[in-house]
């Protein structure tokens, strides 16, 4: 008996020892924003289950791409897991920064059919439209709109709006309606304070104005190539309809934004909205839980709507990210364990409950999902109409060219919309020629 007990204790000690020996310290890299804090909380469950410890490297959005792409390009071992932007997937795959996950998914029974198709295409696949997976959809995000429901419900404003525009003051269905509303609120005095129409993306340095203007361009007819020729730019990127869309965005900027909003992105838009400066706010859906919780604009004072349709389409700019295993990591097995844990439906449900945005169909297609949060239905509506920017390995060059030309036209007022898009086609053509794709 004594011998048996000794053997049991020894075996247990050995098992514990071996578990300790294989326990890794994983570092997960992502942007510094609210969902990242939720993920830290959520990951405590993984630490408890696996014995691995988690560290986090979060970088503010304006520096996120710079910092993390430098890390990947230099073969850095800082990050074991990377929640990288959707547009990085081409570079991550082709430059060998990420490991391909197909075999792992097959072995662990993780099916991409369990995730929203748009997020699989946007966050996981490279080349697009092929079943080659380099990430697990981690955070579903899309550009949508927030509006001051409490202002919209003021009877005197409703009456004046109806008299002016001949329709009710409510969430807009079209881009033209949106502009009318923004014009209506511009420089209006509400509760003794001058307010403005809309906070839109205009930021120059990283990706801001591109993430904003595409919400209008797509709906006017702009596209990235055609199904027959994915690199056909002439007449597609710079079509007269696309130029009209760009003119619309400039008009919206000129008529209806707060003074000094020439370099605004996510955080500036949030600040303007929460401080009661604007009636409408363009922003990614990740901010919605924060809006609901805000003492000034939350608790029913705000409403949400999907990006309104335009004359030639109805789309919204995809945001969000997939989670990948970095090929330079020394702890790839533990990193894969994390992905396996994260892909469980109950974890995904908790992810949504904690303020994350799950892309798992079991979560977002659950019967009570649409009523689970005031913005849940808008989130679903928006995710159904997403379109994403280029995810090519040269995406950074493509993005910077667009930032340059669009900002020069919309904010600086240089040239015409048609010239801006023609110049964009010229730059993009040069980039694709350098890449050997044209």
């Amino acid at each position, binding site marked *: 008996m004594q011998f048996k007990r000794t053997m049991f204790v020894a075996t247990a000690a050995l098992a514990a020892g071996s578990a300790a020996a294989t326990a890794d310290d994983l570092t997960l890299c992502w942007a510094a924003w609210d969902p990242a804090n939720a993920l830290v909380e959520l990951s405590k469950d993984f630490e408890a289950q696996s014995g691995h410890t988690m560290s986090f490297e979060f970088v503010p959005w304006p520096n996120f*791409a*710079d910092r993390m*792409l*430098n890390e990947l*390009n230099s073969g850095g071992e800082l990050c074991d897991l990377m929640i990288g932007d959707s547009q990085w997937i081409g*570079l991550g795959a*082709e*430059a*060998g920064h990420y490991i391909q996950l197909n075999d792992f998914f097959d072995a662990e029974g993780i099916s991409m059919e369990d995730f929203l198709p748009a997020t699989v295409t946007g966050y996981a696949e490279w080349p697009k439209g092929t079943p080659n997976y380099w990430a697990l959809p981690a955070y579903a995000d899309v550009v949508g709109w927030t509006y001051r429901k409490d202002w919209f419900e003021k009877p005197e404003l409703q009456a004046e709006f109806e008299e002016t525009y001949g329709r009710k003051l409510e969430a807009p269905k079209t881009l033209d309606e949106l502009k009318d509303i923004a014009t209506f609120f511009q420089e209006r005095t509400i509760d003794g304070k001058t307010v403005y129409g809309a906070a839109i993306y205009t*930021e*120059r*340095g990283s990706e801001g104005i591109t993430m904003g203007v595409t919400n209008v361009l797509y709906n006017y007819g702009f596209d990235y190539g055609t199904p027959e020729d994915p690199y056909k730019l002439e007449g597609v990127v710079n079509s007269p309809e696309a130029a009209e869309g760009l003119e619309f965005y400039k008009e919206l900027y000129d008529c209806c934004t*707060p*003074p*000094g*909003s*020439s*370099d605004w992105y996510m955080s500036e838009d949030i600040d303007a909205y929460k401080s009661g*400066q604007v009636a409408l706010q363009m922003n990614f859906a990740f901010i919605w839980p924060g809006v609901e919780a805000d003492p000034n604009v939350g608790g029913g004072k705000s409403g949400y709507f999907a990006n309104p349709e335009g004359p030639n389409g109805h789309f919204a700019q995809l945001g969000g990210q997939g989670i990948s295993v970095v090929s330079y990591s020394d702890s790839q097995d533990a990193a894969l364990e994390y992905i396996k844990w994260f892909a469980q439906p109950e974890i995904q449900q908790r992810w949504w409950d904690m303020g994350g945005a799950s892309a798992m169909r079991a979560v977002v297609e659950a019967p009570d999902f649409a009523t689970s949060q005031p913005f849940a239905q808008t989130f679903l509506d928006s995710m159904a109409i997403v379109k994403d920017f280029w995810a090519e*390995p040269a995406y*950074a*060059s493509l993005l*910077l060219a667009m930032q*340059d030309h669009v*900002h*020069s*036209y919309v*904010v*600086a*007022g*240089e040239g015409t919309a048609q010239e801006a898009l023609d110049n964009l086609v010229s730059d993009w053509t040069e980039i694709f020629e*350098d890449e050997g794709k044209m």
Partner: protein
Amino acid sequence: MADSMIERAAMSTPPGTARRIRGLSDRTIAWIFVSPTIFLLLAVNIFPLIWTIRLSFTNFRANRPNAEVAWVGLRNYERILTDSDIWQTMQATAHFLFWTLFFQVLIGFTLAWLINRKFKGNDLWTTIIVLPMMLSPAVVGNFWTFLYQPQIGLFNYGIAFLTGADPTSFSMIGDVALAPWAIIIVDTWMWTPFVTLICLAGLRSIPDSIYEAAECDRASNWRQFWTITIPMTLPFLMLAVLFRGIENFKMFDLVVQLTGGGPGNTTTLTSIDLKREAFEKWRTGYSSAYAIILFVTVFGLASIYVKALNKVKER
């Protein structure tokens, strides 16, 4: 005691080594001492420069280390020199450089001249004046974006107070016409004290006896200023212009923080453009050529300027 230490050290040196060291010439010993520095200089400065020149003739991209690198000859240089956008950034840089130097020299010299006159609280004012340059450019950029904010910014309210204009009617960093001046104002605010200090050193180096002799010759204050003060502080002023010129040619942090290079490309200086090409677009070969062109420009201008400075000093 000392003798015994030397003796002990001598005894501890192996006879062969001692013989070898004794056999070295002064020149060889000098080379031994200098070689670590030369090696460091070669490794840190010269080798990267040669490597950059080599890369500038290729299509290399640092984010694709495994991709095939092609020799493109002078194509990168040709593209840069014929690119109207790059000429626009050159113009923006020249505009920024000229006006910042102009204002900094003008205001810096004036302040130094005032401080140089003995008055009560002289030291306190000197300390207050140099405060801006002690701050980090990132901090300065950040708080000036608030000062320039049309709705809450003190700068706009100040202008509104002076002119009667609506403070929200103009945006210093969002307007194409105003943004280049917005960055000039901030750089001038931050770096004028540097010019002041150098000018002050120049003014204080002028012996009082020269002014006393001028007084004896009944030279007016105006004449003393133009024939004594200005010529004798000119080498200091030129040095300040050289330092500030080189610094502002590579200006990056302050402008990125203030305007991000916008609106459009209005305040995109060459250093910002180069950084985008090199570390955002990852066109390493192209940006190497860009860097070489900038290097040659600065090096050429600085050499001409230093020659002029030496001539002034010789006078």
